[in-house]
């Protein structure tokens, strides 16, 4: 009985902490301005980042060399994005008012992925510059 109670409470608390953690990571990245370079690379030079850009941006992130400290956060935000898509799908039938909120959150996830991509592109460029400097 105690184990079942602990299990239920822990799942509820886990979801709360997980969502808040992801939102804190997204809020920090939201303050970062995207460079023209990443806008050009990801094909969003003339428009705002959309909620549906997330998957494409994460694919681009995976193509870049890993910097080492953001893989878990990308995975956590990816899980949060998946949860949001599920909520969006369900809310379309049950609570339509949740739609705009999930859309905004998904946009924040896409922005986070774009910031991660920007960081990794800069890292790749630094690596390339270093290699060229070592050769000469």
């Amino acid at each position: 009985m105690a184990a079942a109670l602990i299990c239920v409470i822990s799942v509820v608390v886990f979801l709360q902490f997980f969502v808040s953690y992801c939102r804190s990571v997204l809020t920090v990245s939201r303050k970062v301005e995207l460079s023209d370079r990443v806008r050009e690379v990801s094909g969003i030079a003339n428009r705002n980042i959309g909620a549906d850009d997330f998957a494409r941006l994460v694919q681009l992130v995976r193509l870049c060399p890993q910097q080492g400290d953001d893989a878990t956060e990308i995975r956590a935000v990816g899980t949060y994005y998946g949860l949001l898509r599920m909520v969006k799908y369900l809310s379309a039938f049950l609570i339509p008012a949740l739609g705009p909120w999930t859309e905004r959150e998904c946009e924040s996830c896409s922005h986070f992925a774009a910031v991660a991509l920007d960081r990794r592109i800069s890292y790749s460029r630094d690596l390339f510059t270093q290699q060229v400097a070592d050769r000469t």
Partner: protein
Amino acid sequence: MQLGPFDYALWFVGFLVEIGVVVCILYKRDVLRYLSLTIYMLCAAFVTCGQYFYVSRFGFNSSQYFYYYYYTESLLTILLFWTVIQFYQQTFREMKVSGYIRGAAVLLLLATALFSYAVVHENRSHLTTKFVVELGQNLYFVGVVLTYLLWGAILKLRETRTRLIQLVLALGVYFSATACTYALRNLFPSLQPYVLRWVPPLVGLWLPVAWAYTFAEVSEDARLATARLVARAR
């Protein structure tokens, strides 16, 4: 049951990240501010080395490794409570209630020790798997409650330090996920060899990785409004 390359890889990465957090704190010269956290991470790294020693010397299925794993886990959890207490002190720093927090911390530790003693006393004739799992589950659940109360205080006091907020939230995810895993083990022991076996190492990796990310990416001066973090449709 034998360990595969994935188990060893998880182990090794876990050890590296634990050391990485300590290096990050040293590099940013934040040791005094996060003293308990640094000591916890160092101890966790030592325990990981000890686990490797026990597995290579006695084997993964040995009772020596089993008891070493669960009892060091419980000791590390108690050490983690100290980190939570330090987070409480940082949150309530301006209210000048450090004395009360220290008093409450001592009381809490005494209560935990007393509770654990009572459980040990009750189970002294059969200190079995069920007992260590139950002890772990209870300790982690105390951690969940403590972190949840701290999160409530952070929201109530409108704390804005991003680093503190992220450290506490990562800790909350860790405590709740581990307490849930222990409770599931208690409820469904048959799940252990297949599903639940992978969860503790992955969750154990979460805490140092999330903390390393926070120390590396978020400066001490960064601020954010906690009201933005409470999921709510506006």
